[in-house]
């Protein structure tokens, strides 16, 4: 008879990488649901469509790289990338936006760097930033949430399909689109503030119409991940706290030109970024101390870019910039090993 000759340990926790990815995808469900409720079926269609594109792209590149295809696709990381990207782009983006973004994310940002585990940058955010820079118009065109006064209802399923796959004259939707609250804030700082603030909470004007619900939904999904021990609390907490504190500071100094902290925390892609994007393990710092620094710096950069930068939202840029710093943070935040007086830091001298 034959038995297995293998190194200890012989038992393992049943959590697998595939399960990790799956749980993260589950975690996005509340957010996805709210987005669908508020903005119609567009996001859901993008998620499904994007996943298909991502799997196809991944398979193709794996084939070209001569790697086992099924093995890598099964880990679910490509689908997760597609889901995150689809959640970040406007629900009515034409199909080619999704295709371009995902191809870039999967092929260039992930596989060309060596595939899962070797990519220095968050692929979904690379795709997002590429789109934002290349197609600023499409990427900032959001239809208003159906909670907004005067907006009848979000597009129906067939309308969404038509919007995405382009059989509709897109100028039609231009009539009903409007800038996102963050965008509004940036463009009309001062003038429209009162208007933004006048609406009631239920109608969602803490952070712009509908957006606080989106963020709260992502927060719920994120808490699920923390509870399942898929992610630790460090990065989201550090990121949201630093963003909140910074926004609060400037709000106290000059409430007229700076938005209030709640607006920042529940506005734009803050929660999606905090729980789902910044926590992408491959590109983040791993030690607890490192995670705190990493998260806090992302929060800081988000605020800086939102307040003084050229783009309305900043999660993607902030995350990518910190991806760049993650290895350095890692080097200087090693935990102290048992039996050592000091923690090691820096790289080995050779």
């Amino acid at each position, binding site marked *: *008879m034959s*038995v*297995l*000759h*293998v*190194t*200890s*340990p*012989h*038992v*393992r*926790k049943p*959590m*697998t*990488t595939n*399960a*990790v990815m799956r749980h993260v995808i589950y975690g996005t469900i509340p957010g996805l649901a709210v987005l669908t409720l508020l903005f119609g079926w567009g996001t859901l269609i993008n998620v499904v469509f994007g996943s298909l594109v991502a799997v196809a792209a991944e398979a193709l590149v794996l084939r070209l790289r001569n790697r086992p295809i099924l*093995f890598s696709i099964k*880990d679910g*990381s490509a689908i997760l990338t597609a889901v995150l990207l689809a959640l970040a782009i406007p629900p009515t983006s034409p199909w080619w936006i999704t295709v371009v973004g995902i191809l870039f994310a999967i092929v260039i940002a992930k596989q060309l760097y060596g*595939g*899962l*585990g*070797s990519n220095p940058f968050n692929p979904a955010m690379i795709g997002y930033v590429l789109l934002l820079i290349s197609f600023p118009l499409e990427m900032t065109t959001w239809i208003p949430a159906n909670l907004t006064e005067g907006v009848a209802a979000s597009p129906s399923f067939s309308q969404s399909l038509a919007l995405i796959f382009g059989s509709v004259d897109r100028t039609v939707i231009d009539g009903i689109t409007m800038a996102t609250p963050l965008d509004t804030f940036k463009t009309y700082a001062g003038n429209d503030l009162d208007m933004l603030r006048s609406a009631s909470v239920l109608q969602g004007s803490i952070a712009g119409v509908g957006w606080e619900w989106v963020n709260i939904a992502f927060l719920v999904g994120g808490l699920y991940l923390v509870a399942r021990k898929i992610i*630790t609390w460090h990065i989201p907490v550090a990121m949201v706290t630093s963003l909140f504190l910074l926004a609060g500071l400037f709000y106290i100094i000059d409430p007229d030109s700076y938005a209030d902290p709640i607006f920042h925390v529940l506005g734009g892609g803050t929660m999606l970024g905090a729980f789902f994007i910044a926590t992408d*393990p*491959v590109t*983040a710092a*791993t*030690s607890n101390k490192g*995670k705190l620094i990493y998260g806090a710096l992302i929060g800081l950069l988000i605020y800086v870019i939102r307040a003084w930068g050229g783009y309305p939202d900043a999660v993607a840029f902030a995350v990518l910039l910190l991806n760049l710093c993650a290895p350095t943070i*890692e080097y200087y935040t*090693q*935990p*102290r*090993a*048992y*039996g*050592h*007086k000091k923690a*090691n830091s820096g*790289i*080995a*001298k*050779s």
Partner: protein
Amino acid sequence: MSRQIWDIPGGIHPAQNKIQSLQTEITRADIPAELVIPTQQHIGAPAKPCVEVGDKVLKGQVIAEGNGFVSLPVHAPTSGEVIAIESRPIQHPSQIDGVCIVLKPDSNDTWGARHPIDNYQSLERNDVIDAIRNAGIAGMGGAGFPSAIKLGIKPGTKIEQLILNSVECEPYITADDKLIQERADEIIAGLEIMQWLVNPQETLIGIEDNKPDAIAAFKKATANNNIEVVVVPTKYPSGGEKQLIYMLTGKEVSSGGLPSDVGVICQNTGTAYAINRAIHHGEPLVSRITTVTGDAVKHKGNYEVLLGTPVDALLAQAGADMSAASRLIMGGPMMGFSIHDASVPVVKVTNCLLAPTTEEIPVPAQEQACIRCGSCAQVCPAGLLPQQLYWFSKSNELEKAEHFNLADCIECGACSFVCPSNIPLVQYFRFGKGQIRKHKSETIKADHARERFEFRQARLEKEEREKEQKRKARAEAAAKKQAAKKAAALANPPSDASGSPTTPGTDDVADTASNATKLKSAWASATKRWKDAEKALTIAEKNGSDQLEAFQKKVDQLKAKAEKTKALYEDAKTSAASTSPSSPSASPSPAVAPVSNDPMVQLKQASADNFKAWKDAQKKTQEAEANSADNLEALREEEATLKAKSDASKAAMKEARAKEKEAMQAKKATEDPTKQLKLDAAIARTKAKKALKALNSLDDDHASHAALKAAYEKALATADNADAALKAAEEA
């Protein structure tokens, strides 16, 4: 009065699976048909067998002695007869056999002389420690470090805590648990001996809260003394020595240091029990409690097993269905080793034998890419970053791995346990550690080699110098003599005018002879240079070089030089020949060979003698040729016959040797086909290489070129064949 418990970082909570083996009392395992006792069951040098095959031994008798300070003796686990001392499979991940003493029990289990120490307090501490050493007691928790060394603290070291490690945090294992439940008093007695030996400020027993019965037993046994039972929360790997020390005292053993550096000594439960048996009963360590468990085993439980009992005997007694087992693990599921041969014996450190089914412990999933999730770093009890260590070990960046404290990894397996990507992290770390070790030993070896080489160089130079000096001294002496003679000759006018030529002294002969050899080599090198130059010239000619003339000149010069040296050499030789005191004798006296009865040796001797005789003859013939001596013909003839003789004896020898070799190979091949094949392949390859070298050193048009080439090709083919055979064998 609850004592502070420090919490270790990380840690995991694998399924305990301990109840299965706790249902029955400790069972005495049967004496097997054969006991295989490895000479190395501890850390340190293996013991030296001190019995012979055929010896009758009694239970507890020393059968192998400790070999050095870090070593332990081995005792006969039962009475019987030593039937072999040989290499047998033992438990080692390398699957390499180790030296074992094989004992055939006589089933009487008769004890030899036992010397209990009734009142150890009246003895010197060192004597008690020696008694512990002589009882062969090693740490029984897994590492197997000789206990006596741990207890023999340096004088002046103050021990603050003596800790008994009863944590037993590995899943499945209940050997200590059961031992405590049934024999707590004896364990405490052993602990008291240690207490007396190291005189600690406090004595603690660390035990996990998942063993209520054992805790109760300990509480009862320690009611009347100053030993404190400290219950720690269940968490793997709190039973690691360093981890337990930290949990109970808050002290960290510094990296690379010993617990006694921080005033702590930590001993295992089984060790305390064994010490008690050794001191109070005079029984050396010949058996231990081993948990036999896993779903493939019918009668799960704890067995008191004689050391050396083969695993299959134990499994058979426990009713294991090996066809249902997915692996066979010696030790626990977290740190145990899978074993490759069911005949490996139970040794001093074997606390568990695990035969799980596939449902229980499935085949590991495929390794996936590290997603840097950091789970491993969260659970590492040593505060390491396994994902970084993994990366460095994988890419062989050993320096960085060392910088990230790879050496502090205790190989607990917590990181592999949680890794979602199924990365066998511990194996990467073991690999990395092995590479670092190898590197270090290679560096040491290289340094050593350099030293030896330099030393040899120096020695050769010195010898050369000495020779030179001697030669000079001789030359001077000769010159003096000459001068004296001349002076004498001048002083005494020649009595006979013709004057007989002075017989040159032996020194002179030697001198001229050595001169001749020197000249010969000079001649050879000059010729070579000339030839080289000529070659270069032809090449230059072919390429139409514009320095042809210069080349030509050089060649001419070299040629002249070569001829000159040749002439010189010839001169020297003739003079040497004429001064040589003994004339070349026609028949060389055969070397007197010591007569031996071994035909092989005789053949060899004969062949060597004949070879020498032929070579001598050849030399003479050549000399004669050069001097165009008149007895050339005769010499040539003789050479030819001698050569034939030498060849014949050589052939005979070769044949005999081949036969012998064949026999040997056949024998070896039956023993281990791949090993022999590997050897063959290596030999064939060396031969081919050698042939190639020889081939390359010859010109294309050389007479023996073709022959050599054929030989080379043949050697190559043999090597290929050997390789192929090896591969085939390996595949099979």
